[in-house]
């Protein structure tokens, strides 16, 4: 329990520290993440030994919050923790003394805490809470450079699309709770979910995991700092959608799985194409993230959450390594456009090697981790109810993956290099990148055991291994040949811009939302007017109440003034003999007035009179009721 609390509370504390203006934001946040990951590792050690538990506390009547510790949760938490810690390490170099780092560190620490909470959530309500905090943090993080108008627009776009999809989660959870009467995330459900509820959950997952048709927000999110892209948009936040599907997997009926598989398959192919034609390295990686998440959704659709989980773990490490590499180039060349990055790999050989290893791993070449996980997905496709569709989509996806990765490598290696500056945080950044690679290289051999421990199986099939390898090799060759060529066909543009059908995001989301906002403002204004009126009448009422107080005050003052006047008058009618007597009297009266104002003795009896009147009224009221 103490470990579990540390996992959430350490990053949350770091976030608060930064928020309240603590110094050394970066190091404190790193420490928070490291403590969290340490606790996560300790917890993982005990769950690996067969430990499992759950705690219920607080919450709504009858629907308590639950935290659940199982092998699955522990594993995901460790992965998230490790990736986050390495990215924090890298971010210390990346953020340096940049403007906005205050906001950056406090939100990213909070983000980590919320992600861990999401993983351990044992009931749907806590899950929704963590999900919401994630969405909010991602908005803050993307708009780290909020003084830049473009960044603001991008953050809004991400937020709007995500909000729309989040609606699905609310509906889905509502349906689950209504259906089962309990908010518990159960491994063995009483009844499977209705079609509406399942579709709602799929909507939520597709939104968070950037699946078709919501894939375009991920490209917009790349306007944020690179560590944010690496953490949120490769390893963690987008994975929340997959976590949702894995947790809800027992609730889905077979008919529903086909829908899920379809979304995954279409996403793999569409966003894979986008990645091939992309002209910006970060946008390429974003599209690739969508595509790889599509693999996971496909695996779930094929009925194998194990394969999805394996690919989730593997992808987290591979994709964050790639992002970290991209960040180093961004710092060096001052841009993420491929045009400016041609040949950059020759200048930064260490980074290029790291980037290359991660790229080849993602393409699915043994012995790297990506080979094992992709095989799992392909084999899952073969074992599913619609083997030809699932397998072909996944195979096509593997080919596309290898193509875009190898194209990127080609661009970075071929051609003449431009100016590359060595930034000051380079060492920190390379450190983060290289540490990440350890798992990319060695992790593949552990995947099988991990999945078994988590209670899943990682499917295996010879056809999948051979097919996947062939597709990867073919893709790598094709991609290398494509590098350096530019495409200007209008269809390519259409694909590159994430399929802006019917005007895309702007027409479909932006304009209606703005319209609605304008309408709401009009309603708001009229409500405002009514409230103002009500406020004015309340003020008048209180004025009346204030007057009674004022009257009494004036009475006391009047008493003092009267004394003064008396004094003046008496001075005017001054006679020598009684002069002193009158002066004495005036002084006494003045003193009395002052005294009276001080103690307000004139008031107490009047106020008491009020009280007595009150008593009389109440007694009279009671008699009246009685009659």
């Amino acid at each position: 329990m103490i470990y579990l609390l540390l996992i959430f509370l350490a990053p949350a504390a770091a976030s608060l520290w930064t928020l309240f203006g603590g110094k050394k934001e970066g190091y404190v946040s790193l420490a928070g993440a490291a403590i969290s990951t340490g606790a996560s590792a300790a917890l993982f050690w005990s769950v690996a030994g067969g430990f499992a538990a759950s705690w219920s506390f607080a919450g709504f009547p009858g629907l308590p919050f639950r935290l659940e510790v199982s092998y699955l949760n522990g594993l995901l938490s460790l992965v998230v923790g490790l990736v986050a810690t390495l990215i924090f390490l890298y971010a210390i170099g990346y953020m340096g003394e940049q403007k906005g780092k205050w906001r950056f560190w406090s939100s990213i620490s909070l983000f980590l805490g919320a992600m861990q909470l999401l993983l351990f959530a044992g009931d749907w309500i806590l899950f929704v809470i963590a999900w919401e905090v994630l969405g909010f943090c991602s908005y803050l993080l993307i708009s780290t450079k909020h003084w830049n108008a473009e960044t603001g627009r991008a953050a809004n776009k991400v937020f709007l699309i995500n909000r729309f999809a989040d609606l699905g989660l609310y509906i889905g959870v509502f349906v689950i709770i209504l259906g089962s009467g309990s908010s518990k995330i159960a491994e063995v459900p009483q009844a499977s979910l209705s079609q509406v509820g399942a579709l709602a959950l799929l909507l939520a997952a597709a939104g968070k995991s950037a699946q078709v048709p919501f894939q375009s927000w991920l490209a917009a999110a790349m306007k944020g700092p690179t560590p944010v892209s690496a953490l949120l948009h490769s390893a963690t936040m987008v994975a929340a959608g997959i976590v949702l599907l894995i947790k809800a997997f027992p609730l889905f009926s077979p008919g529903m799985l086909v829908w899920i598989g379809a979304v995954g398959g279409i996403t793999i192919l569409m966003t894979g194409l986008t990645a091939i034609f992309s002209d910006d390295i970060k946008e390429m990686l974003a599209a690739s993230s969508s595509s790889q998440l599509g693999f996971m959704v496909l695996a779930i659709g094929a009925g194998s959450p194990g394969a999805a989980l394996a690919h989730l773990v593997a992808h987290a490490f591979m994709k964050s390594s790639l992002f970290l590499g991209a960040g180093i180039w961004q710092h060096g060349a001052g841009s993420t456009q491929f045009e400016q990055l041609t040949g950059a790999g020759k200048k930064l050989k260490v980074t290029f090697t790291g980037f290359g290893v991660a790229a080849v791993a993602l393409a699915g070449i043994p012995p790297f981790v990506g080979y094992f996980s992709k095989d799992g997905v392909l084999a899952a496709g073969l074992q599913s109810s619609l083997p030809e569709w699932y397998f072909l989509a996944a195979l096509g996806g593997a080919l596309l993956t290898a193509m875009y990765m190898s194209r990127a490598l080609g661009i970075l290696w071929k051609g003449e290099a431009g100016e590359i500056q060595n930034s000051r945080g380079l060492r920190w950044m390379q450190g983060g990148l290289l540490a990440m690679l350890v798992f990319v290289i060695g992790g593949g051999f552990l995947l099988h055991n991990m999945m078994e421990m988590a209670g899943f199986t990682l499917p295996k099939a010879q056809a999948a291994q051979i097919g996947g390898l062939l597709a990867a090799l073919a893709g790598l060759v094709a991609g290398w040949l494509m590098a350096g060529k530019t495409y200007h066909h209008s269809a390519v543009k259409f694909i590159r811009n994430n399929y802006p059908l019917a005007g895309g995001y702007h027409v479909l989301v932006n304009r209606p939302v703005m319209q609605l906002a304008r309408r709401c403002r009009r309603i708001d204004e009229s409500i405002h007017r009514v409230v103002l009126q009500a406020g004015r009448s309340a003020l008048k009422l209180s004025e009346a109440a204030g007057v009674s107080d004022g009257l009494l005050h004036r009475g006391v003052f009047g008493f003092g003034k009267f004394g003064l006047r008396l004094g003046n008058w008496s001075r005017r009618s001054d006679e020598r003999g009684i002069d002193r007597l009158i002066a004495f009297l005036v002084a006494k009266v003045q003193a009395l007035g002052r005294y009276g104002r001080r103690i307000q003795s004139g008031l107490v009896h009047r106020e008491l009179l009020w009280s007595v009147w009150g008593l009389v009224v109440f007694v009279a009221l009671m008699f009246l009721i009685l009659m």
Partner: protein
Amino acid sequence: MTNDLLLILPQIVVLLTAIGSLVAEMMGSARGSLWTLVIGMVAASGVAVSKLGTVTTAFSNTFRVDYLSLWAVIMLCLTILLIAVMARSELKDTYREGTVYSLLIFSTLGALLLAGAGDIMFIVLGILIGTLAGTALIAYAKTDRATEGAFKYYIYGSVTSAVMLFGLTFWVGATGTTYLSALHDPGLGSAAAIFGFGALLVGIGYAGSLVPFHFWTPDAFEGAPVSIAAYLSVVPKVGAVFGLAQVARELPAEVLNWPLVVAAVAVLSMTFGNVVALWQDNVIRLLAYSTVAQAGYFIIGVVGIQQGGLAVNALVVFGIAYAVMNTGAFVVTQSCGPRLRDFNGLGKRHPAMAVGMTIFLLSLVGVPPLAGFAGKFLLFGTAIGSGYTWLAVAAIINSVISLAVYLRIIIPMFFSEPEEAPAAVKPGIRFVWITTFILTIGVGLGLQWFLV
């Protein structure tokens, strides 16, 4: 007998602490006096916690040990502990500092007697002990304002107590006993019931600052040291309202429609308090009127007391919430200064504290998920459950008005430029505001731990 003594052990611990703290002061150690208070209060509330769940009476029906009286011990003892820490940082090294702590405990004892009263004499005794100790505390500073406030408090106390005693004799006369449980006696005629209840309302209204018996409130608050004002706003009020609840529980509504009268007082208090608070420029006076309004909300719980469970829960939860958030608001005021201007730019000088104050004030308004919301939510539920929907509606409208009152403090904190350089916050004050801050949020979130 021994059993009876064991039952009222928390109250006995409080009494012994009061004496012990006085002795420590006589020996010249204000610190010792404070520490006696801390240890005694923690012990008393610990004993009360261990007894939670007991429902019985002691000393042949004269004192009740139940949910209300036990929770009163817990919340008041812990509140007085926080207030003593506030008083320490405000009055440190003044003449006879230790008497303050001793008097604080004595007056708490008065409130505790009220909260567990099963006999009319305990009501009278509770109010008298509270009044006398309170008067001395208000006058402690010996300034003109303090004297004025103390005088008002005293004169009000003597008149209202006299009226109350006079009225209560009707009850004793009609039933022939001082037990509250005797109020069921059919011999209690309507007229006697009315006079007695009206008079009781005067006494309780004075102690709990309910309209129209509240007039002492702003002057006494302004004159007294801020920590004493915080005490006045919490301790006597909780005692008075719980005492009223103990009486109302026994008084049959067929003889006399007392819930309607209490509801009327509630609406009057809320409305008057909020509306007049809008006009105050002095934060202490503003908070004084706000406590008048909060007292109005508080007695909504009494209206439905005969319905049982929910009303009792509502009283306890709101009591806790009110004690916590009000102490919090007062401690920040103690640190900043009494004028509205003193809050200008607090958000820049002490951002954490400004956030804390905002949370306290929003909790006073009743914004979820803070403690104030939990309390008000239950109270309004009680009102609706006992058929007083109009009362709930009036209370909700009042909550909206009160937002305007508290915004008058919140807005300058964040939207005005600071006039002075940030000053260091005393450790005692920091301790109190952070504790109350955590509790304000914690009570709101962990609501069900306080329910029966």
